[in-house]
């Protein structure tokens, strides 16, 4: 009887070893699930995760939705990771709320879950969030714009946001910008409830050039005197500039943005974008992979940055017109750090 049990457990052990691969670290599987695999931001994330996983000798599976908002694909990916016995999941949720139940399942199954870039609602649905401080990112360009333009008290401001669903990244950047510029934002999770007369309007861009152009055209139709333009990201900023140019108003407005993608930094250098807040997707993902490796080793969970409910992976203001009291780097330096 004892002999049988011993044999069985040896066989089980052999099976586990056989399935797991040669070295102990190879047993660690990490999953990276991004919103899409098309946006350069996520491409960079994948690059950072792959590099770090290779360096630590752990296995990495990557998944992505077909487009931003593709919740089903992400749910299926989380389920695959649970089934595959992964140690942890890094995920940029396409929907901050809809993915919470499946994330709970993953946690129950003993996986470490880290939200990258976009926090869950509630944020503690994941063990930790590694993200850019998007509010801070908006605030920096808001402060910069206020310090740069001639008459901030009588500015005419256009805000080019992401889309109608007002996800957290969208309102955090938008409201951060206003806070930095000195506008009373009222409810800081709601875009458009402000009554400051300097705001000409909000419109949506889907975060690309075409949407940016159309949104800018529309707001210029409301008031052609717009001289400050906030944009959700740099492609939208490029579109806004094209619209201003076609209206013959290219020199009238200062455009600010968020991201730090290489084409965006080039636009800062060319003077199209006045300032942008750079974020660091590569760092987000590589820190995430490190955290999963650590968790697999000793079960320790990463802690948030002091004073925030997430781990801040940093944001840097990029501009060629530095303002006193506001730390920033120039476009040449930024080109060495940009992503995409």
């Amino acid at each position, binding site marked *: 009887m004892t002999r049988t049990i011993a044999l069985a457990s040896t066989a089980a052990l052999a099976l586990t070893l056989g399935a797991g691969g040669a070295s102990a670290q190879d047993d660690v599987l990490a999953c990276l699930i991004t919103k899409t695999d*098309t*946006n*350069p931001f996520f*491409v960079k994330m994948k690059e950072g995760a792959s590099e770090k996983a290779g360096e630590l000798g752990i296995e990495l599976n990557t998944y992505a939705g077909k*487009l931003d908002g593709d919740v089903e694909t992400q749910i299926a990916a989380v389920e695959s990771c649970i089934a595959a016995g992964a140690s942890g999941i890094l995920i940029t949720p396409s929907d901050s709320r809809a993915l919470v139940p499946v994330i709970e399942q993953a946690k129950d199954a003993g996986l470490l879950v880290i939200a990258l870039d976009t926090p869950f609602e509630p944020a503690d649905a994941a063990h930790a969030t590694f993200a850019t401080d998007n509010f801070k990112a908006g605030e920096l360009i808001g402060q910069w714009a206020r310090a740069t333009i001639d008459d901030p008290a009588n500015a005419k401001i256009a805000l080019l946001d992401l*889309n*109608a669903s007002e996800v957290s990244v969208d309102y955090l950047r938008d409201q951060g910008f206003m806070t930095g510029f000195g506008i009373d934002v009222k409810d800081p999770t709601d875009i*458009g409830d402000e009554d400051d007369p300097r705001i000409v*309007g909000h*419109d*949506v861009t*889907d*975060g*690309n*050039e*075409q*949407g940016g*152009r*159309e949104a800018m*055209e*529309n707001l210029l*139709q*409301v008031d052609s005197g717009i001289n400050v333009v906030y944009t959700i990201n740099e*492609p939208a900023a*490029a*579109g806004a*500039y*094209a619209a201003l*140019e*076609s209206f013959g108003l290219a020199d009238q407005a200062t455009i600010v943005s968020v991201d730090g993608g290489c*084409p965006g930094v*080039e*636009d800062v250098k*060319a003077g*199209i974008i006045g300032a942008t807040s750079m974020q660091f997707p590569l760092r987000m993902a590589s820190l995430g992979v490190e955290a999963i490796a650590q968790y697999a080793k000793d079960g320790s969970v990463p802690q948030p940055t002091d004073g925030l409910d997430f781990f801040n992976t940093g944001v840097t203001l990029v501009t060629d017109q530095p303002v006193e009291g506001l730390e920033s780097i120039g476009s040449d330096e930024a080109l060495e750090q940009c992503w*995409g």
Partner: protein
Amino acid sequence: MTDTGSPPDGGQDYEESLAKSDRSVASFARSHTPIETLQHVLHGNPTLVPVIVLIVSVGIFGLIAGERFFSAFNLTLIIQQVSIIGMLAAAQSLVILTAGIDLSVAAIMVLMSVIAGKLSIEMGVPAPLALLVAFAGGTAAGLLNGFLVTKAKLPPFITTLGTWSIFYALNLWLSGAQSIRSSDLDEQAPFLKFFGNVIEIGGARITFGSILMVLVFVALWYALNKTAWGRHVYAVGDDKEAAELAGIRTDRTLLSVYGLAGLVCAIAAWASIGRVGSISPQAFYEGNLQSITAVVIGGISLFGGRGSILGALFGALIVGVFQSGLRLAGVDVLWQVFAIGWLIIIAVAIDQWIRKVSA
């Protein structure tokens, strides 16, 4: 009818009384209400509905949003904003007239704009040559759809659902999901932005792209209405088997329709570079659905064979007018989406109602 006056005196006089009788051919008793008359008129002129809707909506938004909406500047801006979706709708109309559907139009367009951009910016190919490659590519992409529909006998919906993903993936692979910047185009291939040029007349700003859209519609209208090919397209869409029995080479007609639609998408690709100012692989993701929206609102029947391609132009303009008008009236984006949704449903309901007419 039964009352034939006083009874005849002699047997030979019956013809006299006959002269007073009803001479019309036997028919079902029916009275034409104004609604039915309208139904008949609309059945004969399917483009009338979108034209009326367009005129009425311009009038209403002119009243609501006032000067800002009803200026030459804004009205030409609307045309500029719908020019790309308009051209896609033209391509879409061709396919829908054959009772098909093309979900890949926007994907073909974006892919071709990326190809033209890559060739001229990164490989130093002269812009006109790069565009020729893109035109050939667009035609080939359309022919692939046509081949799958005619030879492999796949339903158009499934075929183009598949090629939509395929072309989109190729686009992302080629572009690395990165936009080609406006300033790079200005330096190395300004010709690609040709259709962004503007003619200013007073407050009106007419882009070359807007003119191109109108030309595309006029050319296709001519081809559909004044050539044998056009009649074949309608015949195939109305009843493919009957068309075949009548001696039309239906497969060849279908193939030509898909190929031409692909070419129109490639032409739209050139115009889109001028319109957007840069080449963005992420733009126009919903262009295929927007083009279908324009076609449907334009009164072209999804069942094929009925409707004028000019309807799609008006359909695209109606969407543009609604978006601009609602925006200038300060309506939230989400209610704009809501309004367009109702437009689609009402347009199709009207189409169904008109189709019920007894000819």
